[in-house]
């Protein structure tokens, strides 16, 4: 992993990535604002952002040649972000309606149990 084993990427290549990022920014804007995507509205934006993030991390930050451990670290961090969001929103979504005046998936006073 010494510095001479870097794949020589060149300015042109980086510029290509920049273009791709620009295009994806436009795509995310367009799909979020001017397209009927229904339930995919939010997931789509997250996916596009993740693709962009991948481009930045992989090529700009050179994760591609920074070794497997670093790749694992970064993936782990994303996993924990997802975990935190999922379990906390999971709580809000399943509380009794009175315990959560503004929102609950359950319309009756008695919960699912």
């Amino acid at each position, binding site marked *: 992993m010494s510095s001479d084993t870097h794949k020589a990427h060149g300015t042109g290549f980086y510029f290509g990535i920049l273009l791709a990022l620009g295009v994806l920014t436009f795509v995310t804007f367009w799909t979020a604002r001017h397209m009927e995507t229904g339930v995919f509205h939010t997931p789509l934006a997250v996916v596009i952002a993740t693709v962009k993030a991948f481009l930045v991390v992989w090529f700009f930050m050179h994760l591609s040649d920074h070794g497997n*451990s670093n790749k694992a670290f970064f993936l*782990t*961090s994303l996993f*924990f972000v997802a*975990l*935190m969001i999922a*379990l*906390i929103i*999971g*709580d*809000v*979504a*399943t*509380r*009794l309606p009175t*315990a*959560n005046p*503004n929102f609950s998936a359950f319309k009756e006073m008695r*919960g*699912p*149990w």
Partner: protein
Amino acid sequence: MSTHTALEEGFPAKHFLNQGTTFKSWATTIDHKRIALMYLVTVLFTFFLGGVFALLLRIELLTPGPGIMDAQSYNRVFSLHGIIMVFLFMIPAVPGVFGNFMLPLMIGAKDVAFPKLNLATYYIYVLGALFAVWGLWNGGVDTGWTFYAPYSTTTATKVVPVLLGAFTVGMSSILTGVNFMTTVHTLRAPGLTWGKLPLFVWAIYGTAAVQVLATPVIGLVTLLVAAEAGFGFGLFDPARGGDPLLMQHLFWFYSHPAVYIMILPAMGVVSEVIATFSRRQVFGYKMLAGSTLGIALVGFFVWGHHLFVSGQSTFNAGVFGVLTMLVGVFTAIKVFNWVLTMYKGAIDFKTPFLYAMGFLYFIIFGGMTGIALAVVSLDIHWHDTYFVVAHFHFVMVGSVVMGFLAALHYWFPKMFGKMYSDRWGLAAALFVFIGFNVTFIPQFLLGNMGMPRRYYQYPEVFRTLNVMSTAGAGLLGFGFAFILIVLVVALIKGKVAGPNPWFSKGYEWNTTSPPDMHNFHEVPVMVDAPHAYEKVPEGTLAAQEAAKTEAEGAHHHV
């Protein structure tokens, strides 16, 4: 071991302690061993401070009514006790002291990966501690160590400086984690594969991973609560549409994994100590190493068990209930493997071993009560009673402090080159053990009776058990002071320990005691697994492999 360094017998003339004795040579040192000793002095001080607060608590609780202080002071005292013990003592204790000292020695490195960062980390910790202590001096906080909103955002006490102190200490903890993980990844000596890593190193590694992943979240929580207390943004304030439970979720997202930041290194210590004093490789190395990572990982999935009756949804309580059980399984694996390490061993009952046994006792007892608490319906009765207090003192004071003391007694000869009196060491340990049980077993019963925690006054029925508990705390405090005396005496006029007083085959014993400034005189090559006391049968695969690694190691050596 094949690394036959020219170990000077007895006490070396030159070692890390006497190379530079000025204040400056200590304050600006980047030597991991010296930094470790600086941590040691600091955490002993914070432990003492927290302990004094604990004794004040116990004295106040001697009588049902008001005693030596008023309610406001009591509330501050238990908050400070918790905050100091958790953030300033327990979290930096084992990693800061023994992680720093032993990690490079155990992996055959000259230092940690980022020595300057290591020193900076120490100073950041001290800065955070000073921040907190300053807040403490100027009125303290009365929120408990959990800082639950909206109480913490509306109280008139000095939450902001203390929170910023916690934030700063957290930064130090993160950087320690970054440093140690990188060290383990990049600085292992030739031949030291992951499969041979000493279990203490595995434990420090798992801890470091948790530190890096969890601590930023408490950093954020402290910032948010401080901002909320200062400006009233309403993030956790129901009157402004906020959700107080969000704060609890985020808090425990850190603070549950944090309890594994405390216990994992202690578990690592115990693995080393039991192996050394039984003269065996641990029973089920892979299981122990794997369960370390398992605890580190699954420890992140269980935080909701602190919120069973807090208004969290029933569904979530179920999810967190199941996941919590998994942590118990991983810990059980560890306990069984430790116990069976003694099987066919050659046990020598020295002070560190007694502490390791104490650790086992406390983790079994404390852990089982943890499992009982995680049984959702039982937590209805126990939540926020003295049962919980007793549970976490069993695992924190019992297990972790026992682990800390085991480490201190096990590595004391390595760190200082002197040996303490084993007889007095055992006697002091006995005091701690008995004192501890007398202090905290009555608290389990108080919890069963229904005495809530953080109670300044209590109904008469709880009196007898409280008196017992206070008496035990006196004994416990005496025990700790006793240990201090035994060790200080050893420092001054202890016998010369020699490089390997326990005849251990742990890697860290391959150098002089105290070690040289650069740890080793030659780069060690790790051929055998640590603690390989068993005879290797001739011609087996293991023997061939050993020969192979030795050859490779010789190449590797620049």
